[in-house]
């Protein structure tokens, strides 16, 4: 393979030598491969795309040239996308081509490895949530929430078209939910928060039998650990609505079990384990009660036996899915995020239960420690909300929030501006060593 004449060669990934191509054409009795195309002239394309071929090295340089334009900032950012250290072994194992380049496991006899890994992933989520059924994955937290909303339509005994979501919710999540709500004509409404917690009284006030689902998050998008989830669960129970709880696997290692507060579905981004910062690339977690099993969207791996009576795994209950059930499927999802789930399971196993709990505890102590230090900075008050925080918290700033963000960027740091005078700051073990310098930078820009 030559680097020097890339533009004149064909695909570097088509192995045909000229002699082989000739032999194959001869076997087909045609002179030219173009003779095999059955495209009417009227719609044939005979132009070019104007895309120059590049060598592998040149392609890497080109990507580098573009990406270098990203500023090098230390990110104290969260709000749904988190950075935890992913060990190298997760990379090395997940990149093995037998995993990375494999297909969906429709031939389970040659896919036992991936099926078992997904089965293990499902099992880990079952342990983390206390609920009985986890699917293989959805795209991300937002689409998982959307799927939960449509699930509520399928499993609820009486119809209802209201979906209640917290006032503090990422715009992106809200917007995706709206799209999923569009087909089944659901209406998405926000219930108020009280100092970072769901205002349960107000929620109870809003709730009626037309409510199909209530969504709550712990920690909230503002990093606040929810303290009244059981009460939210009571409200949903009162109205036979689905209680959908948003969280993530690191938080779930420490926080009370969703099953114990009455959650019916747990969604969220599970890629906080296994991926780290990746511009919003995620892994939609979807776990629910066993009774909803046949209404679950997405893929499920189940245990079975093979012809030799040995335990084996297979995709199962596929009659829920689009390739069998077509327009009566529980979702249109097909390709999901299987490889990310593999990585998440690997990362969770690498940490082990104590490692996960320790990591979760660090998310609490580190957030609270940084909030305390920022609170000492002239011009800042943190945390704005009472209560416990996980990874992140909101900071009030005397200066306009956007100006602070810009000044910080100039100093090499990124934080969120959530309102005119509200910042949000997130920290994990990955930013541990940068916290001190960050507080100093804050002190410079906040006064």
């Amino acid at each position, binding site marked *: 393979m030559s680097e020097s004449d890339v533009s004149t060669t064909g695909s570097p990934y088509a192995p045909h030598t000229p002699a082989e191509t000739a032999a194959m054409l001869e076997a087909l009795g045609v002179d030219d491969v173009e003779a095999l*195309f059955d495209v009417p002239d009227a719609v044939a394309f005979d132009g070019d795309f104007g895309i120059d071929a590049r060598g592998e090295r040149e392609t890497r340089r080109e990507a580098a040239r573009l990406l270098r334009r990203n500023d090098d900032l230390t990110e104290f950012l969260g709000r749904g996308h988190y950075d935890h250290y992913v060990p190298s072994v997760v990379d090395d194992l997940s990149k093995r081509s037998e995993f990375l380049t494999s297909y969906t496991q429709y031939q389970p*006899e040659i896919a036992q490895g991936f099926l078992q890994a997904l089965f293990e992933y499902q099992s880990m989520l079952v342990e*983390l949530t206390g609920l009985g059924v986890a699917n293989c994955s959805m795209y991300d937290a937002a689409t998982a929430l959307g799927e939960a909303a449509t699930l509520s339509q399928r499993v609820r005994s009486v119809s209802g078209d209201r979906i209640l979501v917290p006032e503090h919710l990422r715009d992106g999540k809200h917007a995706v939910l709206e799209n999923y709500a569009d087909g089944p004509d659901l209406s998405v409404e926000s219930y108020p928060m009280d100092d970072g917690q769901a205002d349960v009284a107000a929620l109870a006030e809003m709730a009626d039998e037309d409510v199909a689902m209530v969504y709550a998050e712990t920690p909230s998008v503002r990093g606040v650990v929810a303290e009244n989830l059981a009460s939210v669960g009571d409200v949903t129970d009162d109205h036979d609505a689905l209680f959908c709880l948003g969280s993530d696997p690191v938080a779930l290692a420490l926080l009370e079990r969703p099953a114990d507060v009455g959650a019916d579905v747990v969604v969220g981004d599970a890629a906080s384990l296994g991926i780290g910062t990746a511009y919003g690339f995620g892994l939609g977690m979807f776990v629910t009660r066993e009774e909803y099993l046949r209404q679950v969207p997405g893929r499920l791996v189940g245990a079975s036996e093979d012809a030799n009576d040995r335990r084996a795994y297979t995709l199962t209950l596929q009659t829920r899915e689009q390739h069998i059930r077509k327009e009566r499927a529980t979702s249109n999802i097909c390709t999901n995020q299987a490889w990310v789930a593999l990585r998440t399971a690997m990362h969770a196993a690498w940490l082990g239960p104590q490692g996960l709990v320790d990591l979760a505890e660090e998310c609490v102590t580190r957030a609270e420690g940084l909030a305390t230090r920022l609170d000492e900075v002239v011009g800042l008050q943190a945390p704005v909300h009472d209560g416990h925080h996980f990874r992140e918290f909101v900071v009030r700033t005397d200066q306009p929030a956007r100006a602070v963000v810009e000044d910080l960027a100039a100093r090499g740091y990124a934080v969120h501006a959530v309102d005119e005078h509200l910042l949000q700051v997130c920290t994990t073990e990955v930013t541990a060593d940068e916290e001190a310098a960050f507080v100093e930078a804050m002190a410079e820009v906040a006064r």
Partner: protein
Amino acid sequence: RYEPLLSEKANREVAVEDSPLPDDLTRDSLELPDPAEPELARHYTRLSQMNYGVESGPFPLGSCTMKYNPSFTEDISRRADAAVHPDRPDSTVQGTLALCHRLQDYLGRIGGMDAVTLQPPAGAAGEFTGIQIAKAYHQHNDDERSEVVIPDSAHGTNFATAAMAGYDVVELPSGEDGRVDIEALEAAVSEETAALMLTNPNTLGLFERDIEAIADVVHDAGGLLYYDGANLNALLGRARPGDMGFDVMHYNVHKTFATPHGGGGPGAGPVGVTEDLAGFLPDPHVRSKDGGFEYYTPDHSVGKVHGYYGNWPVLLKTFAYVTRLGDAGLIDASAKAVLNANYLAEQIPYEVPFGPFHHEFVASASPQDAADAAKRMLDHGVHPPTTKWPEIVDEALMTEPTEGESKRSLDQLAAAFEAVHGEDDETLASAPERTAAGRIDQVEAARTPRLSWQALDSET
């Protein structure tokens, strides 16, 4: 050959106590596997050995374009300067935006589309995006419509997507030649038709020769033409959906542009549209501005289909692949894909009822059971075709070798077909016998669902 579960090897329960949170906010304990790294490494290495990927051998899976995934694209997707948080201001991620803008442009050229969004995280998500765009377009024109027309040979996702978007599905029976029957189409469309969803070449590998007429019928009825990009690899540089009259399309980058399937994702399903529909693209979209780039919300945006910007690392790999191949490589890819399919079909003993086909063909295993024949192919060290679909072919073996298979590899595949063709039903029914697991009881799995190790434990 069977490997114990991680939980069977090394489960451990730890108490959650003395945590920085009050007890009533925390769980009591957590029980998970706790392997040390050497055990972890061996566990997953062993699991990988029980899995078949593109680098394991021939992979002629119909309609799924399992082509070779170039290693170097992984390196690009994992660059440290690409690992940015999605909430950073545009001005600080100009590299990311520049690359997205470039990729939007490339995909537009390849599909003959005027504008492209990269947000949909998979092909089905692309379909959903496309149909929501069609819906928004009709609504914008105060022209509410209730139906989506879909050929019976189409991918299951098309039907599910239409339903998810709230449409009724009108199924279009295939014509005798395996293609869209114009008369049937005329009968199917109406002023309720929001769109026709079509793939071309279709799942039989056949080019819809009447595509212009088809487009006219749909457009005349006020509907839009949606292109399912699953089979785009057949046509690169030969025909473009935009030129054929399609208004909306999705690209399956994990098919056409060699990003790895990952055992079922992550993929990405960018959506291209004509100029008329550009205002309906998801929020946000990238455009150039003053020598740089910015996000903006298209005027009539359908909103979002992913919480952030889609599957960014996958898009990086797509960029890398398209940039590496360029015109010459892309055009050669489809040439070799079509050559390979035709050559392979010529070598095998099974009948291929329809043609001329392009990058894939559907052979009939009849009177053998196609699924059994496929299981037997596993014993020959190759991945089998897609089976029993589309139903228009009896006992279908839907075969797509892609351009990545060498003549040698195709000959190996043909030998496997040949060997299986000669075998009796009993042998086929008891296949496979040389794989990590024997034939797996699917019925039992569904009858008694055991979907976690907890479920297995509670049995014993």
